[in-house]
């Protein structure tokens, strides 16, 4: 049987992305289903991530599945030196699908190669986090009505932010125009700019972040500028307040603009933005539920038709 695991967003073709968005849309219409009535979903969090775990567990529960798992690696045997392989094979005896988060990069890929059941990668170190990308794509699709020909502005830490890198790569199918707004030390790495060139994607780089720069945006994707990312702390002091979004900066923006953020935010979006109808980051997180319901169903072989025909 073909391995249906989801390890990296690059595994999805354009058609598959659109298909998964349609499925998420069905779950948004009616999140509570009995599709996974007799199934067991394991959530193995070798590294704590409350937000992601709650979202996956809610998705599993709303589909009617039972959830087993752990969230604190200290209580499991992996801290006693058990290999990942043994843990995965042991849990495969009980569960129909494994959702896993791991602090080591490549852990989900490896698990997907050894496990008899599908693996859903809920984050492996700084590497991949495909369900985050799917919820970002769903949020864009839902608020703009399309993924095609959009002006996407990415702001803040574009060097280490894996969510912006994954989103950039997934958007390659949809003819976007990117604007990268970042301090010098956290600029978009060359490999992603080369990626854009290779795929004929237009991009512009900015150091300034103000109402004029973002006036043309359809999507403003904010990320946090963290102190520990800087080698030059003087530089951090200079830029730390530059990449904060304030409500008055939205005065010239388009009506269809929506502001996304992978959460949690600290201070990079000021609280006066929250009541602006263009603020979308809380609904964005809720979209994660629908995107994850779709992902869990898909790896278990449940199709869009199955979901549509489920009454």
């Amino acid at each position, binding site marked *: 049987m073909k391995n249906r695991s989801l390890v990296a967003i690059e595994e999805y073709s354009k058609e598959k992305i659109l298909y998964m968005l349609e499925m998420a849309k069905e779950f948004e219409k009616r999140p509570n289903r009995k599709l996974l009535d007799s199934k067991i979903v394991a959530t193995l969090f070798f590294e704590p991530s409350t937000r992601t775990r709650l979202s996956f567990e809610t998705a599993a529960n709303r589909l009617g599945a039972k959830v087993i798992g752990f969230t604190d690696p200290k209580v499991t045997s992996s801290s006693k030196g058990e290999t*990942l392989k043994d843990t995965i094979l042991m849990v495969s005896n009980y569960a129909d699908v494994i959702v896993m988060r791991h*602090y080591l*990069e490549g852990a989900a890929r490896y698990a997907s190669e050894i496990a008899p059941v599908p693996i859903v990668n809920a984050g492996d170190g700084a590497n991949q986090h495909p369900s985050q990308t799917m919820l970002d794509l769903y949020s864009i699709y839902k608020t703009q009505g399309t993924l095609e020909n959009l002006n996407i502005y990415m702001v803040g830490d574009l060097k280490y932010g894996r969510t912006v890198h994954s989103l950039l790569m997934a958007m390659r199918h949809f003819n976007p125009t990117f604007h990268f707004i970042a301090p010098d030390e956290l600029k978009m790495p060359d*490999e992603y700019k080369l990626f854009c060139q290779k795929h004929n994607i237009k991009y512009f780089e900015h150091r300034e972040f103000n109402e004029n720069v973002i006036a043309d945006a359809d999507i403003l994707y904010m990320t946090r500028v963290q102190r520990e990312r800087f080698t030059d702390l003087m530089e951090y002091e200079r830029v730390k307040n530059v990449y904060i979004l304030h409500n008055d900066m939205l005065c010239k923006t388009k009506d269809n603009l929506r502001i996304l953020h992978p959460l949690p935010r600290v201070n990079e979006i000021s609280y006066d933005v929250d009541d602006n109808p263009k603020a979308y980051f809380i609904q964005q997180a809720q979209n994660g539920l629908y995107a994850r319901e779709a992902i869990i169903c898909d790896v278990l072989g449940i199709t869009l038709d199955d979901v549509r025909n489920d009454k």
Partner: protein
Amino acid sequence: MTENKTELQVAAIENGTVIDHIPSDKLFKVVSLLGIEKMDNNVTIGFNLESKKLGKKGIIKIAGKFFEEEEINRISLVAPNAHINVIRNYEIVEKKTISIPDKMVGIVKCNNPKCITNNEPMTTIFTLTDREKGILKCHYCEKEQNKNNIEVL
């Protein structure tokens, strides 16, 4: 063509493969990458022989063994400039060149300490993403690394 003089620092073979111009400090790595210690063939190994180009070099002569390209390419990262001479009836009948294979299984150590391969008893897999620049990519953590600063297992 007959085997040249430096090769005669160790005994000639009738049929088989001669791997010459191996940097001396990489000789035993080459031996293990090719699995020579597990072979039943008659093998002659020369270590710390004199070489104009390398100063000290190693040479391996394996009687009755003819390598597939895939096998010999295993040593491409440690001895990229080694000469592979195929010997039949005491004569060199073919000189093979070594190139980095597109996929390397169990050869390279990932230089990312947070990679699963460095924390779990498992086999590494690397793919060559840029032949010209010598860029390898770890199949697991997806980090790209240059062949000049990688460690061979």
